[in-house]
């Protein structure tokens, strides 16, 4: 028997099994927490830092996706400080790549774009970095545009954890980090890719897409993977 803990999120009494995370319980109770790297069904990595919450008694912010519930904890999900940090995180994502929503296949279906709208990001004071990033259109069905990649590593995890192919991984580090197939091989020449398309389905932006999709046409297929439970759908449900 897994012990159940009761605690508070934004003053609301909630309960969760001790192996559940704050994020899971928040979602269960329709309490909004933004996420980008998290996706139900894949191991949490705590990388995007959007779901950081305040916990009374600790001066450190904690990622809700990677923090287990504890008896009596008092969680605050939406303080002014957290909102400010979240907006800044989104701004950072916008300036580190080349996100040109108006010509993107995912326009209108993009989690980054949607979160920016929801959290009220209408411009950024950060410096656009305008990096020179590649596009790999070698594959006959799929393509990756690194300009739109936010390094959430959902593709890496779904490929390794669910498909078992581990075609994707992250290369380099820091601001130079990039997802690659095999030995940075063009996608078409990958020896391990099974062409299952899971990576395309979990991508939160228009970085991974099906070919022949025009602007705004890259809609994720909700039926394709039953565990494709993004924050967005949960919130819209």
């Amino acid at each position, binding site marked *: 028997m897994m012990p159940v803990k009761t605690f508070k999120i934004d003053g609301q009494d909630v309960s969760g099994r001790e192996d559940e995370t704050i994020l899971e319980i928040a979602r269960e109770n329709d309490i909004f927490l933004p996420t980008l790297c998290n996706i139900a069904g894949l191991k949490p990595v705590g990388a995007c830092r959007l779901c950081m919450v305040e916990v009374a008694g600790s001066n450190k912010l904690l990622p809700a996706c990677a923090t287990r519930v504890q008896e009596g904890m008092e969680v605050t999900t939406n303080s002014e400080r957290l909102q400010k940090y979240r907006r800044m995180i989104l701004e950072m994502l916008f300036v580190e790549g080349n996100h040109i*929503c108006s010509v993107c296949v995912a326009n209108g279906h993009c989690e980054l774009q949607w979160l920016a709208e929801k959290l009220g990001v209408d*411009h950024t004071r950060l410096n656009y970095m*305008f*990096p020179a990033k590649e596009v790999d259109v070698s594959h006959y069905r799929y393509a990756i545009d690194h300009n739109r990649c936010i390094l959430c590593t959902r593709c890496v995890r779904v490929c390794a954890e669910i498909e078992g192919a581990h075609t994707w991984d992250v290369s380099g580090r820091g601001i130079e980090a990039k997802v690659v197939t095999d030995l940075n091989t063009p996608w078409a020449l990958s020896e391990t890719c099974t062409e299952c398309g899971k990576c395309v389905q979990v991508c939160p932006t228009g970085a991974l897409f099906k070919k022949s999709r025009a602007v705004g046409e890259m809609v994720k297929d909700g039926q394709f993977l039953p565990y494709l439970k993004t924050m967005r759908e949960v919130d819209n449900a």
Partner: protein
Amino acid sequence: MPDKVKVATVWLDGCSGCHMSFLDIDHVLLDIADKIDLVYSPLVDNKDFPDMVDLTLVEGGVSSVDDRAKIIKIRKHTKLLLALGDCAITGNVPAMRNRYPVAAVEERAYIENADVNQRPPSLVVPKLLPKIQPVHTVVPVDIYLPGCPPPGPVIRDALVALLNGQMPDVSPRFG
């Protein structure tokens, strides 16, 4: 009519789609027209920016020395500056040139892709800045209306609010 609000619009490096969208607000345009004086705009024939206007809508990013001089001057002569659309706010599509050196961009545009008169731009073409920049990195901006273009109703609501003396409260999105 002394109490008419003086409005200007300016077109920097963009496709003019935001101006089109502005015109897309249909009959509200007529209501607004009663309340404003469009003193300077690509839509009207007035060469000089007036001494002081109440509101300027700027479309497009700052791409050339000419754009930069223009927006710095306009900022001095306008009370409220509204960045209209993604190009003004992020650089957007025109900023796709930013990863290439200016010389390569000009080579591509004026020589490689030209059918006739293959030569670099002449003196009358304003010199390009190394990178297109959002307007607010050059001068302070008061209001942001992202979108490519911002939909007509968004522009309408923003203008109506401003004419009523309120800051617009819209939740627009990029793209």
